[in-house]
């Protein structure tokens, strides 16, 4: 029996961040306008009615502005009593005359205020909520909630157990899409619900001691291919996202992509112990009567009705469970264990390319494997480091809440670079008699299997245990042709639960000349950062360790990063590694073959990367296994 859980969340903003600018064209900005307030309330009513018509309950995320509206409060109370909707409290929708008069600012992003202001606003907003409703909320929301803010909310209001806490991959891509005016960055987080650690919201907790006390959900369920390369706001489970992306037929107003997106999320239950999740979190600004983007109001309305209609239809068929946010938090904690990953093989459902990615997220890492590039690792975040990244005014970091990458194929190239230099990627190169091929040149697909391990992991509600598993991708074999030699390569990629490592196995077989040998180079090219632009690599150390001798001694080769394009090799090396103090990261690679040669390569200013890896010769039927490990470096 599988569960497809959906959270429908509405927030009665009375001066929506979009409508304020858009509907006011030609008029001076005025958030006191009564027509804006009235229209926003009408839209909120329409959204609620549409959900209820389809048999769906909602979570109403009251905004600060709406707490001053008797009408909004009355609607929430009525819908709570009649439909079982949860009344939560959003930290979005702060703008209103009362807020501006009190705080003297047009800032609207809670995570970017100073800590002192965050505390004052939380005290104020939560206090006002209690005053209006007579109870404390169990859920809250924002586009991002930093770890310190979550901690403070839990202090003021321990009843909060669920929060919308990030927007998946809304970093530089969203910024560029908004004409470089959307000054908030939150790349590098989970795409599906998780329990944030106390240290960093994006990095999931690895146990009760790190548990922030809430279940976090992302803002919308995003397309895991389209959003990684393009504008996040075009490809999510918010019908108007799909209109913003112009992903509809202008003649018929049909948008099958939306249903494909929902259905692909439903299919993920196969890889996550029978559980799949979707959320729709919608403010009123998108549904204003003047239309939005190229879409007239009638199309906006149709998309919303049909989007919720599909969820309603699934519920009627018994294929969907609608929960409120706090109900979902209880479900999640009873279902998941702390080290259990979220797994998402993701197929292109928009561009017709048959491209496939595999996203993996647990308490130690977020990783993306690209089958269109032979199973290369194209995105990697070291959650094991649990980086504390305070964000907001006064922290020295007002806007960037992104969790840093080691590998990001879009921001720091990948396999392909122009003219010179290297891009971030973890791949393999085969060579033979002067010819070579990188597995990034091979398009393939993967199949997912999993195997239970003996070890057990604590459930997130601490009321039981669950067996750990090892997940594995088996890639369809690819054929390489190097001069007069043809052979096949089978790649298997393993993710043992809780181990903070990725194991890759390459087997070569079907040689056209049975006596031939091929040279294999397993490598990772990496750097660190959160945007496209290079950071200073000074301070990074690269190293090679020999195996320990009987006396326990070992030799070491070291390179302190100085942009001098140096390299070192060590025959029979045990480990190649890098320490990146800027992100408190130790990343290392080991290989199964004692005859392999380890190497480390420094970059240079035009190519501010480092590379580490191994080379080994393989004959027909032989296999090489590598382990890429991530750890926190203090």
């Amino acid at each position, binding site marked *: 029996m599988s569960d497809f859980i959906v959270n429908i969340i509405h927030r009665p903003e009375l001066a929506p961040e979009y409508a304020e600018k858009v509907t006011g064209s030609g008029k001076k900005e005025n958030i006191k306008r009564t027509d804006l307030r009235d229209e926003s309330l009408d839209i909120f009513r329409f959204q609620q009615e549409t959900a209820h018509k389809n048999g769906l309950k909602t979570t109403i995320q009251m905004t600060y502005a709406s707490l001053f509206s008797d009408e909004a409060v009355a609607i929430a109370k009525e819908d709570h009593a009649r439909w079982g909707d949860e009344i939560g409290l959003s930290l979005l929708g702060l703008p209103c005359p009362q807020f501006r008069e009190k705080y003297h600012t047009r800032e609207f992003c809670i995570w970017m205020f100073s800590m002192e202001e965050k505390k004052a606003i939380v005290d104020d907003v939560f206090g006002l909520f209690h005053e209006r409703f007579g109870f404390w909320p169990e859920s809250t929301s924002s586009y991002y909630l930093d770890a310190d803010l979550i901690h403070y909310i839990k202090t003021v209001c321990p009843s909060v157990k669920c929060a919308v806490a990030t927007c998946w991959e809304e970093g530089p891509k969203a910024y560029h899409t908004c004409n470089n005016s959307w000054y908030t960055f939150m790349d590098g987080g989970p795409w599906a619900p998780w329990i944030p650690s106390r240290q960093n919201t994006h990095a999931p907790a690895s146990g009760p001691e790190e548990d922030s006390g809430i279940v976090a959900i992302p803002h919308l369920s995003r397309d895991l291919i389209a959003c990684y390369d393009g504008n996040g706001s075009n490809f999510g489970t918010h019908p108007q996202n799909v209109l913003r992306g*112009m992903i509809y037929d202008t003649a018929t107003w049909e948008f099958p992509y939306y249903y494909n997106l929902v259905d*692909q999320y439903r299919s993920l239950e196969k890889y996550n112990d029978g559980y799949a999740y979707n959320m729709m979190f919608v403010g009123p600004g998108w549904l204003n009567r003047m239309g939005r983007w190229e*879409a007239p109001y009638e199309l906006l309305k149709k998309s919303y009705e049909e989007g919720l209609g599909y969820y309603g239809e699934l519920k009627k068929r018994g294929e969907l469970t609608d929960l409120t946010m706090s109900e979902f938090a209880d479900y999640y904690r009873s279902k998941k264990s702390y080290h259990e990953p979220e797994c998402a093989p993701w197929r292109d459902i928009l561009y017709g390319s048959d491209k496939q990615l595999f996203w993996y997220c647990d308490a130690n890492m977020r990783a993306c494997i690209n089958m269109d590039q032979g199973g290369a690792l194209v995105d990697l975040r070291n959650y094991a480091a649990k980086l504390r990244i305070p964000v907001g005014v006064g922290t020295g970091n007002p806007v960037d809440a992104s969790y840093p990458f080691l590998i990001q194929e879009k921001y720091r190239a990948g396999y392909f670079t122009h003219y010179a230099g290297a891009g971030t990627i973890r791949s393999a190169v085969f060579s033979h008699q002067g010819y070579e091929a990188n597995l990034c040149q091979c398009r393939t697909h993967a199949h997912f299997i999993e195997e239970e391990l003996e070890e057990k992991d604590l459930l997130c509600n601490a009321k039981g245990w669950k067996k750990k598993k090892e997940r594995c991708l088996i890639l369809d074999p690819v054929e390489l042709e190097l001069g007069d030699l043809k052979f096949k390569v089978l790649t298997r990629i393993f993710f043992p639960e809780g181990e903070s490592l990725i194991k890759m196995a390459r087997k070569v077989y079907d040689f056209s000349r049975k006596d031939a040998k091929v040279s294999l180079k397993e490598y990772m090219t990496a750097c660190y950062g959160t945007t496209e632009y290079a950071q200073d690599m000074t301070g990074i150390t690269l190293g090679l360790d020999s195996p320990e001798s009987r006396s326990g001694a070992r030799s070491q080769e070291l390179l302190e990063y100085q942009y001098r394009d140096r390299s070192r090799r060590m025959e029979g090396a045990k480990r190649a590694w890098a320490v990146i103090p800027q992100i408190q990261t130790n990343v290392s690679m080991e290989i199964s073959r004692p005859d392999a040669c380890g190497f480390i390569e420094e970059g240079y200013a035009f190519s501010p990367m480092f590379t580490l890896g191994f080379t080994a010769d393989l004959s027909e039927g032989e296999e090489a296994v590598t382990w890429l490990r991530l750890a926190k470096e203090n």
Partner: protein
Amino acid sequence: MAQAGKGKLNYRCPSCFMRDLDIDMFYDTKKEEYYCIRCQYHGSEEDVLSKNEMARFRYKAMRKRFTSFDFD
């Protein structure tokens, strides 16, 4: 001519949209055309709509309903 304003809908620049940039255009009543203040695109409503269709060239599976999401 008086200052430009928005047209009847918030038409975005189709040229910028194709480079993942959302920027509303302004309408020049004298020339009866929309224009982009960031790039050099300008055109009538009819031209905007036709370029928006062109922008969909990359969505080759936009009209397809998928029933399978794996490659097993």
